[in-house]
């Protein structure tokens, strides 16, 4: 019965937010620029409080991933993270984003940089459910933006493109590895 409260809250929010004027939403950039469907519908919409949280829900639920969540929303790639997958998501902490040169994040979340941001985010996603044990056996990963990230083994642990795995959380649709560094895609195709 505890569920009633948040559900009500949701409906209230939904009603409030639905009533906004049509102009409030800026026209989206050309549909060909993004990999996610331009329409904000899809599995990210589904209310499901029974299953194991998916990769997106884990990030949303984490106090240490506010920047990542903001970035995902700015790039509109939510649906890519709630898909049946399986997905391996490397989730940089707020601290990792903060370590980027000043102004980088602010720049990336600007609407005109949506494609660049989406590309960076997809560089944090691998198709497949890869535990640290499996990661330790691999030399590189093919990421969702079509580029590769290298894996080194340091002190017996897999280090992904220079990022250490701080924690790993099993998700309903794969696994989230919390990392201490933002992965930046190489400027040239590595293959």
């Amino acid at each position, binding site marked *: 019965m505890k569920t009633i409260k948040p559900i009500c809250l*949701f409906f209230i929010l939904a009603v409030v937010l*639905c009533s906004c004027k049509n102009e409030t939403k800026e026209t989206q950039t050309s549909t060909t620029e993004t990999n996610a*469907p331009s329409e904000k519908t899809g599995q990210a919409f589904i209310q499901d409080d029974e299953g194991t949280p998916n990769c997106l829900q884990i990030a*949303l639920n984490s106090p240490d991933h506010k920047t990542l969540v903001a970035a995902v929303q700015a790039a509109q790639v939510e649906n890519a993270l709630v*898909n049946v997958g399986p997905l391996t998501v490397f989730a940089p902490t707020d601290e990792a984003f903060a370590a980027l040169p000043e102004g980088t994040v602010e720049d990336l979340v600007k609407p005109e940089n949506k494609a660049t941001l989406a590309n960076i985010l997809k560089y944090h996603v691998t*198709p497949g459910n890869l535990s640290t044990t499996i990661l330790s056996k691999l030399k590189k990963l093919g990421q969702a933006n*079509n580029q590769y990230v290298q894996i080194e083994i340091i002190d017996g642990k897999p280090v992904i493109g220079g990022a250490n795995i701080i924690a790993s959380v099993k998700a309903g649709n794969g696994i989230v590895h919390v990392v201490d560094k933002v992965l930046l895609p190489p400027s040239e195709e590595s293959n």
Partner: protein
Amino acid sequence: MKNILKSAVAILSILVAFTSCNNSSKSGGKSGALAGNVAEKVYVAPGEHDEFYAFISGGFSGQLSVYGLPSGRLFKVIPVFSQDAEKAYGYNEETKPMLNTSHGFVPWDDSHHPDISQTNGVIDGRWVFINGNNTPRIAKIDLSTFETTEIIEVPNSAGNHSSSFVTENTEYVVAGTRFSIPIPQKDMPIKDYKGNFKGALSFISVDPEHGHMDIKFQLIMPGFDYDLAHPGRGASHGWFFFSTYNSEEASTLLEVNASQNDKDFIAAVNWKKIEEYVNNGGGTMMPANYAHNVYDESTHTAKSTMKKEVLVVNPADVPGAVYLLPTPKSPHGCDVDPSGEYIVGNGKLSANLTVHSFTKMLNAIADKKIAGDAYGIPILNFEDVLAGVVEQPGLGPLHTEFDGKGNAYTTFFISSEVVKWKLGTWEVVDRQPCYYSVGHLMIPGGNSQKPFGKYVVAMNKITKDRYLPTGPEVTQSAQLYDISGEKMELLLDFPTVGEPHYAAGCPADLIKPRSKKIFKLEDNNHPYAAKSEADTKVVRDGNVVHIYMTTIRSHFAPDNIEGIKVGDKVYFHITNLEQDYDVPHGVSIIGANTSELLIMPGQTETFVWEPKQVGVWPFYCTDFCSALHQEMQGYVRVSPANSNTPLKWSLGEDIE
């Protein structure tokens, strides 16, 4: 729990904020003037017919469903690889042999890729072929009766997935193995897979008149996984293209170990060259054991024959017949455009689509530009055969179809969308979301020189919240898009039978005029047919009893039978004497350990009853046939095993 809820609320409210405005111009919207327009586009008025047939496989249901487009109405589920109690398929004596295999009776399979027969590169609507994955089989369905009339088992194959695609004149229906295995099978350690397991690509010839299938040859390829395939057409007619993954030849944790190579291959097979080689005595006949099951429409009975050998060809023995085209990241779909020039590799772990050029491939071969070899099969240079790349159209490309107007449509599993792009310029033109996790898609005539580019059907693996919930298992679905304009428009969601894995479609007019209405009684050559009530009888042979029975509105003949004993094996051979369209009769008897029979006009079907209890047991018509359907019934008297009750039968008078 609370946290999850809170976050769920947060997500939803954010998403609502993002989406609640400015939706009115979006296709597929649920309200507004447009919705009415969309409804009109899929509305087929009562009594009207749909414009297209769609044959949508049932995946794990093992069957093939027939739908109409654009309405999405379901007309029939054709039983193919799975028993169907509704139609007695695989239950009655006549069709049990259809499911015979070298492993015995196998009453289920995983039906995947229907493909309609072609003449001169155009869909002809005579037959539809479909593969069974699990116990490798290819079935042929006759589109005059919409019944499965032939199934051939494929030896040396496992996980028959790269199937069942037809060449331009239905010379062959082709079946490639997904799993490589020891050929011939033997007891050996799994770890010795690499270099020892092989993959068979089977070319099954199709008799142009009857459609009878026969394995002409099997090409024994390296131990990769062969995923999907399509024939060349036009200029590339005579070639066949197979996508491969697991070129790593891993046997465990393939989700990781088969994704290590940057590129796998599309295997290009010049089947005309191999055919010539075989016709000149090439290849090796090897011992095998596989079932060939043929249903004869005149006897209404299937016969299973075990075949004992198969012709195998080593690609190394036919130089110039097979080449490998490097293709990024575990390509799934391997699709050839209507002109036959472009071969699209849908690298499912790639964000790009790779398109190869048939002309460039021929040039590279002519110029002997060989990059290396795999087990003696020449590998061409990726750059030499590449026509173009569609850059980052989506995540997880799976399958591409064509509209015949220069456009291609690709499904993306991970990003859950259909993307329209232009052949030649490789630019993305439009994209529409799928709800959710779309697999294959279908444009009627898509696998031919002449697609009918009016609609595309996308088949989804997951629906979650799209329909009224039905517990943990919810329906899978298909979605219909109008592709007649520059932008695609979502018209309709409709639920499907089983997993809508793959589909083939064609204009209804190709099939409709040839659809059979009845079976002519005079052509019925069933050995136990009774073609009139005068021919009905009951014959005992030891403890086996044959009942030659007929049905007509609204009675069975005979309908009283005595002299049956506990321990008998009673065969009910029922001939439906009706010669009127759409008047089948059904029958079953209390305690029968099998399904009902559903007998079409002019047809004979048989079920077996082994009575275990003394008594007088009723049987009745199970298909509502007429105003006096409820009167259509009868009795069988079952006496003790050692009784002397004489064998007698009657209709309309008492047994004295």
